[in-house]
């Protein structure tokens, strides 16, 4: 039992519980099922993208271009949805393919030219956003067909479609990370990059896969984004990447690579969602939200480093045999 207590995810889960209890004491409406459902529904897009970002961060990479990718994919999904005769399949295909293409571009630059991920995605962030706005000339995509927008609020057997899609994404990502060679290679690459290639892992391919997968999930998220809002602004997703990275880092993923669980990231998403919703319900001015989100991220990260440091301290020990007394017998 006690190793469960030490687990990072459990600590974060307790933090989530404490925050929720405090909020529900102040505003009883917080714990109503409809509010909890709306917290989940409002953060589905964040959760889907957090799954992809977790894998990126586990390989000690980072992707600040996901916000622009979201806008790019959402616009193209919207344009395709407007074409008469298109249906859910064409929309799904366009979303995922455009996401993968953008993700692969990042992957090739990072794995191929060995340029640090932070700088590559900084560049592609501007390239994606700039080319999208140039192409659409800033025009919004409006009046999306009913079959597409209904994607967001219809339920199948009582479960809203977006939640089903989220569960599918979590399932697939969990399957990849836990049950495939590729998934374990992602964690191996993050844990010990030097040795990874020695045990036969093609590190370049793993990096490319991780960024392409991030793109694919962003594509899926963009489909839901368009369905939720019914009109798509080419500036959609601006600085959304900061929320995605914050959620994954609060959830316990280590930016230096090697650790990061899907469960942890989901808890991180919930913590951000609960904080934002709670602040509004408690009728606190929305501006406190930035202060709270920023502080949560800083404390989560600092605690992580401090107790990692303690564990490292205990490890660095050369075993000195007690029984050898000074000037021992020879």
């Amino acid at each position, binding site marked *: 039992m006690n190793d469960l207590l030490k687990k990072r995810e459990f600590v974060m889960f307790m933090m989530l519980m404490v925050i929720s209890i405090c909020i529900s004491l102040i505003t009883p409406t917080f714990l109503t099922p409809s509010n909890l459902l709306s917290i989940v529904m409002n953060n589905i897009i964040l959760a889907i993208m957090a799954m992809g970002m977790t894998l990126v961060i586990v390989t000690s990479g980072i992707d600040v271009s996901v916000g622009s990718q979201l806008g790019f994919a959402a616009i193209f999904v919207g344009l395709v949805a407007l074409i008469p005769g298109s249906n859910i399949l064409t929309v799904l295909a366009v979303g995922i393919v455009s996401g993968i293409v953008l993700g692969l571009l990042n992957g090739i630059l990072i794995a191929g030219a060995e340029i640090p991920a932070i700088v590559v995605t900084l560049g592609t962030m501007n390239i994606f956003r700039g080319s999208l706005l140039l192409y659409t000339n800033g025009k919004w995509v409006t009046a999306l067909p009913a079959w597409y927008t209904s994607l967001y609020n219809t339920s199948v057997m009582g479960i809203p479609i977006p939640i089903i899609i989220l569960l599918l994404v979590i399932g697939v990502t969990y399957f990849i990370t836990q049950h495939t060679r590729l998934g374990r290679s992602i964690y191996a690459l993050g844990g010990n990059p030097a040795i990874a290639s020695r045990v036969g892992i093609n590190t370049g391919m793993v990096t490319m896969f991780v960024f392409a997968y991030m793109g694919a999930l962003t594509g899926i998220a963009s489909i839901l984004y368009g369905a939720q809002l019914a009109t798509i602004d080419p500036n959609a997703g601006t600085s959304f990447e900061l929320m995605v990275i914050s959620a994954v880092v609060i959830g316990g993923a280590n930016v230096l690579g090697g650790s990061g669980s899907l469960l942890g990231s989901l808890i991180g998403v919930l913590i951000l969602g609960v904080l934002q919703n709670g602040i509004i319900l408690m009728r606190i001015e929305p501006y406190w939200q930035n202060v709270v989100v920023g502080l949560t991220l800083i404390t989560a*990260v600092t605690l992580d480093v401090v107790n990692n440091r303690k564990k490292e301290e205990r490890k660095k020990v050369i075993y000195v045999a007690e029984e050898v007394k000074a000037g021992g017998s020879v």
Partner: protein
Amino acid sequence: MIGIKRSHELILLLFFSGLIIIMSLLSPSFLTIDNLLSVTQQMSEFGILALGVTVIIITSGIDLSVGSIAGLTTIVIAMSYGWSGSLVAAILLGILAGALCGAFNGVLIAKIGVPPILVTLGTMTFFNGIALVLSKGNAISDLPEEFYFVGQGYLFGNVPVQTLIFLVLAILTSLLLSKTPWGRRVYAVGNNSVAAVFSGVQVDKVLLYVYIFAGIMSAISGWIISSRVSTARADLGAVYVMQSIAATVLGGTNIAGGSGTIFGTVIGVSVFAVLANGLNLIGVSPFAQNLLMGLALIVVLLINNVSIIKRKIAIFIKLNFN
């Protein structure tokens, strides 16, 4: 100034002068004196931010919170002017606020050892939040006339004041980096922080001063922006964060730390400024500016790693074709 023997600055200078020629061909009003001066005016705000960011990246760190510190400073200046009534006190308080924000980053990064990208990701939202809470999200614009001098005034005929400030700060930072002990230690920490510790360098003190320095630079930049637009708003600096990092990397500072010069950064900043101004004059839609800035950054990075790319292609061909 530093000798431009380093090949990267040479190439960048060539690229920059080429860009100026292209721009003046495309739009006759580009090469006029007052346009060039207004280019220097527009670039000084995010250029000063870039000075702080350059010093940080040389120590192989990064700072995403410079924009929020600038925004917070404008609010602190406007509000403290409201209480104290004296402009000088308000501005000093603003710069002090910037230094404190920098120190907050510095303590977490240097003393506790949290990775810089995480700390500044958190403080970016945190400082922005403080600015919004202080200003209730509103713009504050009851500032006195003399306050506008720095942002809108001119000296020696029509040289904008902030261009002079940027120049002075750039030269000062360049001297600080190349001549003072602190500067030498900044490069040492960026190159090999373990060897620096073993040479008796107090790495945590050096890093703390680096982040305080960046905080002060952000504060000065915030002061100039709010003076230019004669209002104080929490989100004034936001758009400059990514641009200042991109300009620094374009200027030849290695993102992994250890190398980079202020001269390179100034060139990187002016490339972006000329790009933005030129495109406006030609009437190219502002969206193309984003695209071209991103493209310029990626292209420069590819050229820096051209040897790796060539090696990889060679291996690829060897494997598949013989």
